[in-house]
């Protein structure tokens, strides 16, 4: 009988390529507690999250992240469980107890529960849910739980998982049906993944409507109007910054993960198209990318690893889509001929292309949409600049921009203040050449 330590060692190593944010809970003191305000509940979530440790690659390691079992009926070509000969499973009691021990040591902040698919998705999920139930109702843990939805999971189990977790993720792994069948031929992209993502959205919306009804009963008119407005906005635009203020379920939304570089011809453009669709169609909160690493014992052991740089560029582009609300076609303009993102910051590449055709930005006159296209200016500093514009304050010196949080060395080439802009080296040479030419003429 393997010990708990042995299980943590092997199942932890099996899950290390699964990526998640440390503690992405949007719960805070301002919003209703998940299970009421009784003192019996243990654990808390800080909205910004607290990282208790970091792995040697600098990633935050604040969740108890292990597989529940590494027995799996699927044979995905990239997966670690393929190469692992020792097959183990936690018992729900063992899992919950081990986590509570770690939590009492102040070394973890929450749970990330994922698993291989043993027998069927429903069977394995039943066991995982049992562990979560123990955490919630035996150990009274009200902290952060991230639950992984296994491919092909039934709707009633998904509903229960939603009611107990802060976040649910359904791994997409690849951007299209063809690419998925190349690396995980047993998985059905439409049925196993997209349908589950749609269910998650539908359950959340239904729940929100129920919350609205409750609020109607309570005659909280102002808040009701506010919520209704938000919901209309939400349905029109898809998920952006909408927060479930009064919803005690799934408040950290749903996420997904892609294995970058495992499928032979999958390009960055394919991935970007897919995440953009997911943000709009299934209320995706965010996407994670994991650069493919060949693992011994797997069918793709001899394939070349995907560069980490590629993963980084995808995260940057995702940020532009999700936070800056760039349009997908904006990013299309900067792609290479192969459909991948070029080397270097996508925002800088985009700005270089964009400001060839458009005039430089004058922070005293421009709009928010123009401002966030300038590298070194983010949504917060752009809002501050617009705030100052509305109050009729004028920037007279470039250095003043620093005080609103602009990274001047990045923004300077794209700015124009009092009609003056930074001279580039290229322009300098051109003017000198012209002068030489004129002199010689």
């Amino acid at each position: 009988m393997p010990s708990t330590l042995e299980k943590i060692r092997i199942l932890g190593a099996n899950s290390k390529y699964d990526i998640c944010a440390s503690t992405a809970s949007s719960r805070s003191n301002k919003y209703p507690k998940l299970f009421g305000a009784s003192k019996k509940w243990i654990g808390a979530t800080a909205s910004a999250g607290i990282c208790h440790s970091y792995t040697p690659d600098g990633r935050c390691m604040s969740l108890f992240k292990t597989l529940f079992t590494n027995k799996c009926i699927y044979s995905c070509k990239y997966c670690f469980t393929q190469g692992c000969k020792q097959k183990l499973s936690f018992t729900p009691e063992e899992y919950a107890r081990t986590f509570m021990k770690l939590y009492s040591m102040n070394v973890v902040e929450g749970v990330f529960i994922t698993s291989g698919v043993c027998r069927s998705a429903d069977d394995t999920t039943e066991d995982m849910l049992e562990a979560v139930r123990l955490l919630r109702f035996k150990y009274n843990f009200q902290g952060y739980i991230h639950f992984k939805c296994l491919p092909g999971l039934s709707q009633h189990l998904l509903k229960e998982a939603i009611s107990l977790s802060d976040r649910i993720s359904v791994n997409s792994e690849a951007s299209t049906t063809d690419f998925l069948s190349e690396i995980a031929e047993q998985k059905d992209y439409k049925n196993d993944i997209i349908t589950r993502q749609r269910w998650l959205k539908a359950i959340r919306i239904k729940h929100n409507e129920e919350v609205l009804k409750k609020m109607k009963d309570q005659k909280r008119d102002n808040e009701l109007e506010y919520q209704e407005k938000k919901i209309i906005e939400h349905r029109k635009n898809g998920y952006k910054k909408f927060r479930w203020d009064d919803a005690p379920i799934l408040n950290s939304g749903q996420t997904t993960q892609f294995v970058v570089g495992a499928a032979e011809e999958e390009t960055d453009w394919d991935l970007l198209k897919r995440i953009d669709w997911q943000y709009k169609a299934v209320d995706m909160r965010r996407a994670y990318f994991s650069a493919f690493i060949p693992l011994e014992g797997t069918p793709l052991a001899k394939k070349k690893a995907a560069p980490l740089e590629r993963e980084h560029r995808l995260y940057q582009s995702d940020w532009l889509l999700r936070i800056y609300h760039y349009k997908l076609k904006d990013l299309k303009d900067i792609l290479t001929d192969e459909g991948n993102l070029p080397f270097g910051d996508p925002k800088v590449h985009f700005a270089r292309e964009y400001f060839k055709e458009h005039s430089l930005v004058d922070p005293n006159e421009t709009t928010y949409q123009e401002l966030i296209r300038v590298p070194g200016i983010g949504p917060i500093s752009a809002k501050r600049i617009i705030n100052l514009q509305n109050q009729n304050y004028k920037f007279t010196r470039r250095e003043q921009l620093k005080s609103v949080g602009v990274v001047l060395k990045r923004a300077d080439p794209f700015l124009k203040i009092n009609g003056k802009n930074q001279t580039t080296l290229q322009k300098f040479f051109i003017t000198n050449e012209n002068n030489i030419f004129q002199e010689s003429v």
Partner: protein
Amino acid sequence: MNNRNSCKDPMEVLGRSKGYSQKELIKNLPRHYKYNSNLLNQIKNTPEVILRNLGSPIAKKVDKMLKEIFAEAYRAKQFTRTEINNKSVLFGVVLLKHKVMDLVLDYFHKRWPQCIICLYNEHTQLTGIINEKGITQEIKQSLKEVVKKISRKRQISPYFEDIQFSNDEIFETLYQSQNIKERKNTRYFNSMIPKHCFKLPGMRKGVEKRFTSKNKKIEEYFK
């Protein structure tokens, strides 16, 4: 800097990304170990415009002081390693130069509302205690004595009895299992856990230090 001119120019304040308000400064500055009442008077008499403008020496000074305070409290929340006994007493050791014990105790109290929390501050050699009602106090006794005294009066809790098992290797095993060799990034790691954090009581013997140590075993060179 000319006070009058600064007051006239709200640009210096509006939309600033840095600096603390006068209210925040008055509330939190007494936590700093270098705090004195003259400084507080100086802040009270200084316009908010100047306090917010990090170009002014006074603002620079107090901003740095406040950042030191909050950074210390945050590091203590992150890297304090605690134990819990079967009588629901949670205890650990901290190293706090500034007066932020209440913030750290409150953080643990919110997580473990049924427990009495005892944290021994190596710097002041005082033990901070917070009870179930959220009342805090500091006493000049060692952690062992305090935990022993408090535990004596309390009954064994089945809940905490259940999670009493050897804990030395659990976290170490979990930590090692999460390491992806191919992604090793020492520079990033050092920015996340700066060297000074390894001086904190919870991190002195931490697995993080051993795992990222520069000292290699001779076998590693032959691989």
